[in-house]
């Protein structure tokens, strides 16, 4: 029980679950009930807009204009559906995804799933440190200083444990995305055109387009998000009676996060794509905020990028360690000592140190790292989603709570879509279409 919930903001302000049958209006009761379970969906969704997220959405808009908005719409629906499945599995099995995979697929498949998750998560943490490096780069601070320092801060805060407060701070700061929404209105984009692009599929059969598209999917629906949402539900002790409120919350979370993504894309489309500026570093991406912030744009963008990166850098190593330990039955939690918690602490250390070192390799292109890591997430995502699908459709595990056909259709289409895009990507890069 001493798990993620101790590390994630606990938004339970009101205890609606104890229920009262005597007082107040029923509506108020419902509101309280909803507030009591609010949290995981919105937090997971907010953390989705991390370094990889901001840079991917910026590049999507800057390099391809509004052409990919239709993908964003589909991905929003898929995100809502897959997160809802994670919630449901958590409510029914009362175990994290790693635990359920272990109990129903055995050690070999668990190892396969966990290695997949580990690679994807290492990629994401790498993006977070690249985000830190880019943010400081704007102010002329070298990455050889900022990245090791950020890594130390992450480890120190996790180990010494004022994580909850720190995370709350970053979560509040990451509300900086609202500036994109305001910005989006200030630049007065053609909303009509944007709406059309949301529903009208456009595709270019080129490597850059496909790579960016897979990154767009992989940064929105992530393997770690799937693990995260399920653990969160379990650790908060939510029960199946919370399902409806939780489902609503997950849907709201998916919508909110992608509204932000939508505005990032239209902002960069209107400012960078229009003038054919390609994003190669944070300074370029920051230009999208000029209409709102003027000369202040670079600072604002760097600050937002830094907060988003740090938030991800805090959550991911811990989430990775928890998932691994749960699946393999190793002891975990910051209350275990080094001897017993060897696996736990080493996983956290590895997932901080390895990504930090990767970012420190001289001359690596930071923006490309951020996008590429999201590609890895996207390419590996179907593996995790297939496990989720097999679990959520297994009557022995889920009882009466197996998937409805509509959920199955959307989820399998998502999986097929990503695999299809990956295959086309591989073929196109081998044959060298460009």
């Amino acid at each position, binding site marked *: 029980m001493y798990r993620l919930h101790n590390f994630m903001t606990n938004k339970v302000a009101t205890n609606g679950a*104890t229920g009262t049958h005597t007082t107040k209006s029923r509506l108020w009761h419902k509101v309280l009930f909803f507030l009591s379970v609010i949290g995981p969906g919105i937090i997971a969704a907010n953390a989705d807009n991390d370094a990889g997220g901001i840079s991917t959405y910026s590049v999507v808009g800057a390099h391809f204009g509004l052409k990919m908005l239709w993908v964003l719409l589909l991905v929003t629906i898929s995100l809502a559906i897959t997160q809802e499945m994670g919630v449901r599995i958590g409510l029914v099995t009362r175990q994290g995804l790693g635990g359920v995979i272990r109990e129903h697929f*055995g*050690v070999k498949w668990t190892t396969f799933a966990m290695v997949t998750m580990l690679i994807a998560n290492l990629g994401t943490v790498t993006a977070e440190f690249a985000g830190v490096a880019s943010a400081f780069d704007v102010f002329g601070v070298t990455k050889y200083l900022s990245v090791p320092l950020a890594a130390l801060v992450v480890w120190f805060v996790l180990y010494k444990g004022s994580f909850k407060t720190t995370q709350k701070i970053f979560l509040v700061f990451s509300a900086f995305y609202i500036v994109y929404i305001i910005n989006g209105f200030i630049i007065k984009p053609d909303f009509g055109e944007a709406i059309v692009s949301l529903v009208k599929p456009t595709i270019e059969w080129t490597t850059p387009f496909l790579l960016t598209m897979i990154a767009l999917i992989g940064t929105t629906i992530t393997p770690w998000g799937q693990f995260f949402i399920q653990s969160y539900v379990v650790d908060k002790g939510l029960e199946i009676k919370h399902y409806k409120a939780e489902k609503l919350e997950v849907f709201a979370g998916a919508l909110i996060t992608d509204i932000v993504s939508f505005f990032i894309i239209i902002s960069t489309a209107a400012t960078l794509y229009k003038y054919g500026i390609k994003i190669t570093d944070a300074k370029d991406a920051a230009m999208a905020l000029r209409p709102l912030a003027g000369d202040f744009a670079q600072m604002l963008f760097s600050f937002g990028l830094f907060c988003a990166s740090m938030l991800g850098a805090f959550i991911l190593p811990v989430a990775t360690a928890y998932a691994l330990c749960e699946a393999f039955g190793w002891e975990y939690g910051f209350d275990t000592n080094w001897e017993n918690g060897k696996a736990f602490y080493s996983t956290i250390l590895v997932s901080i140190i390895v990504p930090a070192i990767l970012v420190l390799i001289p001359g690596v292109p930071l923006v490309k790292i951020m996008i590429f890591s999201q590609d890895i997430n996207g390419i590996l995502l179907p593996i995790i989603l297939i496990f989720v699908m097999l679990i959520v459709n297994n009557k022995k595990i889920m009882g009466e709570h197996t998937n409805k056909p509509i959920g199955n259709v959307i989820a399998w289409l998502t999986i097929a879509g990503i695999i299809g895009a990956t295959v086309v990507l591989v073929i196109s890069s081998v044959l060298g279409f460009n």
Partner: protein
Amino acid sequence: MLFFSNIRDASVRDSVEEIVGTVFDVLIKVDAEREFPLIIGVLVKDKRSYKFFVPVENIENWGVGEIELTRKLYEAKASAPLGESIVSLRDNVIDKQIVDLSGMRIVRVNDLQFGRVQQSMCLVAIDISTRGILRRIGLRSPFLSRIFKPHFLEWKNVKIMDNRLYLSAGAKEIVKLHPADIANLIEKMNVYHGSTLLQSLEPAVAARVLEEIQPDIKKLLVKSLGTERTAALMSKMSVDELVDLIQLLPGKASREIISRLPLDSKIQKVKRIMEYDEDTAGGLMTTEYITAQKEMTVEQVIAEIKRVSHLHHSVQFVYITDPDGKFLGVVSLRNLIVAIKTQTIKDIMRKPNKKLPTLHVDQTFESVTRLMTKYNLLSVAVLDKEKKLIGVITVDDIMRRLVPTA
């Protein structure tokens, strides 16, 4: 050594040397009398994927990757035994989370070791080591075995985290642990398993366990237990722990729980303490202590302690008050034991002065700890404006506040 991983999916050879199927599952019988559960047979999956139960008597030989039957499969099969004591290793044991009662932690079953005990095949040990994982993956090398040491648990020392509590002997062993240890185990489980375990304990034990659980998890557990069950547990708690718990809960939930508590003097005491700020002496103190009058004899006081002892968690001191409740002094158990039986209390008690400091109810937590540390006090009396004794702070109240997660 023979492991479940060697037997699961092993080929099944019948008496005419023909491979007739594979092993799908192994069944054991749980019996409180036996140290090692007996293996009663295997489920064999034949080539058309039909499953048959073959009792252990019809298995001639258990080998790594292959078992041999004493006769043909269709003659060897029997109807599968049913009942609560029959446990499937595939469905209920392998890969499940277990409570390791010897190591006080939650781990997973990586593999199971079989062996002969008095001629019968038994489940002799549970493998929780990384070696077990590597064996299941099929990785074996001298290098890896040097790094990863074997680690086996005995059946009687584990409890499988399943809703079926009887599943292993460990369920009974858990109650023998110290409440603080049970609390630590519950902290490591998820809320559902934690509250299931808590409910399986006797109310008095459960109350002690709940007291020891760290605050944020306690909150979740109380929520999951519901007000009715929580109130039942809380009526067994001591006043200061009760106050701590009530202060932890959101207003509505705590009012509801208080309304369900039996109306006795305890609830009055709780309400009285709750009037004080959590971080003052008033909020820290307990109102459960033994008082005596200064005219009583040592013998009378000892008799009184014997009479009410069962109502208290611990008794270190007896507090002396006048008929109005004004604090006069304190007597330690040691003073009582070494004194002559007929002496009166006023001759042996320590009176409040520089050497025996007391606290005012409004003093802050910090000043309380400083005072207790300075004078090396195990407990200290808390007085109101009229110098009346209204409570006692003991060192464990301070420790709990300083280290809430232990």
